[in-house]
Structure formats: structure tokens, C-alpha cells
């Protein structure tokens, strides 16, 4: 009886709250677990930037077995954080994703090898084992290998690819000669594991000009055709970028907010915030067309997509900010 009473009360409260603030609901699906990589969104929510814009935003964290493209295709989200590679591949499969904003100007992906290992330069990859994440994160790597003309089928003249777990174990246990890391996350796990910066040879995708666009915001084409939804997205992106600005200016506080939302290890989050700030550069969320072209071309070259994508990004939303 008590329980039902409590439930009824809770229900009426939520209903009343809903009636009191007729805020527009937006569901955001993140690409990965709650961490400073998404600090801007958490800050915008906690600091009330979304509320000011009249939005009621629900942030759904992702994980190793969650493909944001699938969540949005199934109607579980209005907008997702995704990498361009996965989004374009999904677009070709009939999920009409459109990039509406690109908070991350640069990519944070890199391949690292121990300095005392067999791999010193790109020429040394032949015949060695390289660790890569899959689940939509493999496209930049395969585009790069394609550019180098290396087969990924193993053997003497190719490279053996290892589907890497989302940690740095394969390198520590010498299962792979090189592994993939993000500048803001796994790289620091290696440093924490006792590696020094000079012990590692780093191949940074952005520095090599092999980067494919990472964390952008994507919505469905059909939804965007509705002016009310597009308007909602303008507010959402604007408020999110305010959140990013605040997070870049106050990394400590931002890390704290991420911790409140399920982040792990505060020190790590503060460091991550610092690295993420470098990738965001200027928080205007504008997509750089050259970067998009490069991404699309790399995907085309390796056959991940079969035809030139049309209308895969729009500047309508960011132009109105």
C-alpha cells in the first residue's frame, strides 16, 4: 500500500513537473561511457544551459556493445555523438544520418609502439601485429593501411590485425607490437602503467593527415525536415557549445561534473579534459569541409562506402547559432 502510494505520488510529481515546464525533450546517445570526452554535454545539463534554452535533455551513455547509429535507427535517440566513418557507413545502409555539428576539429586517435620494439617507422609495420578497436573505430586505421598499400590479411608482406580490447593490455603483455590509443584516454593509461613519453613511438592520425572526423553530432534526415525539430537542434547545439566553452575554461569543475554522472577516476578525467580541449580547438561546432572531404575519400578508397555520400552534413544548424 505504502509502495503504491509512493508510486502514485512520484507519478503525479513527474506529471506536474512536466506540465510546469513544457521543455522540449531531447535524447542524446553518446558513443562511449560517461567520461570527459563528453564533458560539454554533461556541463550544459548540470549548469542549466539546456534549461535556459528550454530543453529537457536526457544523456544516454554508450559502451563497448552500443552502436549509436543503431540506437537512433531504432528511435532510441534524437541526436547521437558519432564518428564520421561509422555515420557515413550507416548512411549508405539506409540510416539517414546527417552531421549537424562538429565540436571536435581534430581526431584524437593514434597508434603507439614501444620504442624498444621492432616498429620505429611506417616502413616497419610489415609482418607485425597491430591492435585496433572495431565497432566503427576501425575505419581510420584501415584507411591508413590502404594508403600505405599494406594488406591487413597478415603474412610476411602484410600486417596482422588484432581486435583490441578497450584497454592497453595487449601492449603490456606484448600480444601486439603496436596498439591504438586515444590521446585523451588510453595513452594516459599507458603512462599510468609505467611507460614514459620517451618510451613510446606515437603515430598521430591528425599529424599524419590520416585523421577521419571523430565526435560529431548527428541527427536523422527525416527529423531535420521538420522546422520545429531543426529549431530544437539549433538550441541544443548552441547550449552544448556553451557547455564545452565552460568545460574548457574550468577543467577541474567539468571533471567533477563528469564524475557525478558516472565517470571514473577524477585525475584521469581532469587530464582527459585538457587533451579534449586541444581537439575541440575553437568551440564553434562548425565542420571544416576539407576534413569532411578527406574522410569521405578515405572511406571510398577502401570500399567501406561504395558511392560519394550526398547531403551527409549540413551547416544549417550551426549557421543559425
Amino acid at each position, binding site marked *: 500500500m505504502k509502495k503504491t502510494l509512493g508510486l502514485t505520488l512520484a507519478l503525479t510529481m513527474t506529471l506536474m513537473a512536466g506540465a510546469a515546464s513544457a521543455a522540449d525533450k531531447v535524447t542524446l546517445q553518446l558513443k562511449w561511457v560517461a567520461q570527459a570526452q563528453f564533458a560539454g554535454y554533461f556541463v550544459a545539463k548540470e549548469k542549466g544551459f539546456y534549461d535556459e534554452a528550454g530543453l529537457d535533455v536526457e544523456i544516454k551513455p554508450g559502451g563497448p556493445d552500443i552502436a549509436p*547509429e543503431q540506437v537512433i535507427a531504432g528511435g532510441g535517440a534524437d541526436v547521437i555523438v558519432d564518428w564520421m566513418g561509422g555515420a557515413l557507413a550507416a548512411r549508405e545502409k539506409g540510416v539517414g544520418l546527417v552531421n549537424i555539428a562538429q565540436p571536435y576539429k581534430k581526431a584524437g586517435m593514434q597508434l603507439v609502439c614501444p620504442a624498444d620494439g621492432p616498429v620505429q617507422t611506417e616502413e616497419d609495420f610489415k609482418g607485425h601485429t597491430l591492435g585496433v578497436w572495431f565497432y566503427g573505430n576501425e575505419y581510420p586505421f584501415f584507411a591508413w593501411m590502404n594508403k600505405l598499400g599494406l594488406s591487413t590479411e597478415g603474412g610476411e608482406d602484410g600486417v596482422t590485425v588484432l*581486435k583490441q580490447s578497450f584497454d592497453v593490455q595487449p601492449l603490456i603483455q606484448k600480444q601486439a607490437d603496436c596498439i591504438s590509443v586515444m590521446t585523451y584516454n588510453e595513452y594516459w593509461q599507458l603512462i599510468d602503467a609505467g611507460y614514459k613519453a620517451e618510451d613510446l613511438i606515437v603515430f598521430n592520425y591528425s599529424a599524419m593527415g590520416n585523421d577521419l572526423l571523430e565526435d560529431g553530432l548527428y541527427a536523422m534526415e527525416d527529423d531535420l525536415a521538420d522546422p520545429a525539430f531543426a529549431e530544437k537542434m539549433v538550441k541544443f547545439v548552441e547550449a552544448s557549445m556553451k557547455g564545452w566553452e565552460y568545460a574548457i575554461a574550468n577543467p577541474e569543475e567539468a571533471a567533477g561534473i563528469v564524475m557525478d554522472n558516472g565517470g571514473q577516476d577524477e585525475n584521469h578525467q581532469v587530464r582527459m579534459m585538457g587533451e579534449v580541449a586541444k581537439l575541440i580547438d575553437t568551440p564553434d561546432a562548425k565542420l571544416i569541409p576539407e576534413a569532411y572531404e578527406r574522410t569521405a575519400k578515405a572511406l571510398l578508397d577502401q570500399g567501406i562506402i561504395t558511392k560519394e555520400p550526398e547531403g551527409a552534413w549540413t551547416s544549417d544548424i550551426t549557421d543559425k547559432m
Partner: protein
Amino acid sequence: MSVFRPNWQALMSLLASLYSLTALPFTESMSAASSLTVVAILLAGALVSMLQLSFAVQTAVLTLSSFGAAALLIAGLTDAFGTATAGYFAALIAAWLLGWRLVTVLSGDGSRGSEGRGSTLIVPALFGIWVVILWECIVRGAGVPFVLLPPPSAIGLRITTSTSILAADFKQTVLKAVLFGYVVGSLTGFLVAILADRFRFLASGLLPIGNMVSALPMIGIAPIMVIWFGFDWQSKAAVVIVMTFFPMLVNTLAGLTATSEMERDLMRTYGATHWQVLLKLRLQAAMPFIFNALKINSTLALIGAIVAEFFGTPIVGMGFRISTEVGRMNLDMVWAEIAMAAIVGSLFYGALALLERAVTFWHPSYRR
């Protein structure tokens, strides 16, 4: 009235086909004429099947009308994704009801002798075929997004075009990890059970551990095995060994106690040694238990190897393919792997069941 024997499936089928006339044509690419042809086939099939006819004629009429209509309905979906009208689905339901009627006719009235031997295979086969037909028509007719559920035709196409990928995955997962793990796990489980049966302290020590290990989540073991045995098939085989060892141990131990006091007394009066009793009496009696474990292990091994491949792995194998192709939205490839896993699992299990029959022919459950 004796000429005309109504039954509910055919009557409902009539109603559904009549209703489908209200929404012609059925899809964007179907002409009104071809839609009418479908309805005509359905109406004729439903009416004729209700006449007093011989068994053979009745089955022929039902087969032709239900599958003929279904074939035309599937053909009508070409280039008409997601444009099916209510009439289309009504016609589909009408065809399906005639299929149902066919199964009813084939099964006879349930008494022995009224059904042929073939119907034990034909009826489930018909059911399976209709599941596939309905899946195809509903997914393509209603326009369900490909990334949520691909139609069976796309999955079939993927199976035929990616045989080399499927063969490589089969080799990596089944022939290396599953087979090795299954044989080693079951064999060691069996040998340890023989020892534990001889030396009781082993049994009392091992069984609690066995129960604990069988409760371990596989997802917890798999990454640890990758750390211990590297990322290739050896670590997957290790997971399979862990999963198959204890069911075998527990079942064999239970089987060895299956003989009665009377039979063991008889062996003692013959002056048989422990090992002679074991070989000639107790192992024979334990065979149903051992085969039970082998059958359980066949499914456990396949599941274990596939799930273990969700973690660090070379870029080949059924589990790897399933987990990564989902991320790439190639759901047809995922389903192709699932279909292969289902077929492999069924064959594995079926072969064991046949072997069991041959070995335990004396068991009361096989008496005719």
C-alpha cells in the same frame, strides 16, 4: 451438405481474401490484374479445399493455392519496399491460413495410421517455410529498416556471396576452438570422474569447486583467458574447456552410481575387481548420463567459443564477425553467421543423439 465440408481455416481465408479486394493494387509495383490473380487463386483454393475430396487432391490443391499466392505476393514486392497496403497483408494472411489448413490435413485426425511417415518431417518443414515467407513479406512490405531486421532473401544472398568469409570463420571457431576445447574438456572431465569415483576424497573436494566454476560468468573468464593464452584460438579453446569440464565430471559421477545394489552384489560374487566392475557394469549404466553431458557440452562449447571471440581476437571467427558487423550495420552478415551457428549446433547435437542410440540401445526409452 455432405459434399461441402467447411472448416475454420478455409472460411477465415475466404473472408481475408474478400477483404483484400478493398485495397487494390497491393503494392506500388503490382498491377491490379496481378493482385486480382492472387485473390482468385486464394478464393479457388479455399472453396475447392472445402469439397469432399480425396486426401491427395486436397493436399495438392492446398499446396498449389497457398504457395502459388505466396510466390506472387513475394514477387510483387520487387522495387516496392514498404508500400504494401492492408489488402496485401490480408491476402498474405489468407495464404498463410491455407498453409495452416494443409498442415492440418497432413497431420490427419491425430490417430495412428492416418498419417504417413513423411509427415513427421513435412509438417515442421512447412512451418519453417511459412515463418520465412511471413518474415520476408512483413519486413519488405511494411518497410522495416534493414538495420533492425533484414529480410531472409538478403541473408540468403549474403550466405551465397560470402562463402569464403563464412568458411574461414567456421574453420577458426568450430574446427579450432570448439572441437579442441570440446574434446579436451569432455575427456579430462571424464577421466577425473573415474579417478574421483575411485578415490572419494577427490570427489568431495572437486564437486563444490565444480559447482562454483559452473556458476562463473563466461564474460568474466574470457578476458582472463585472453591474458593467459594470447588472443588467438587457444584462449577461446581454454574458455570452452572450462565450460565443458564440470558438466562432464558431475554427470559421469552421477552415472557411476546408477547401478543397483543387486547388480553390484552379483559382480562381487563373480569375484570381479573394481576395474572389472567399472568396465563391464557401471560404465555401461552411466552411458545415458555421459551422453547427456556430451549433448549439453556441444551447445555450451559453441556458445562459449562465440562469446569468447567478442573480446581480444584475430580478425576472423564467428564471434568476431557477429560483434563487429553489428557495428558496421551489416545485419545480413550477422544473421548469416547466426544461421551457420544454428546449423552447426543442430548437426553436432543430432550426430551425438544418433551415436547415443547406437551405444545405449538397451535403455528402456528406446524399446519399441
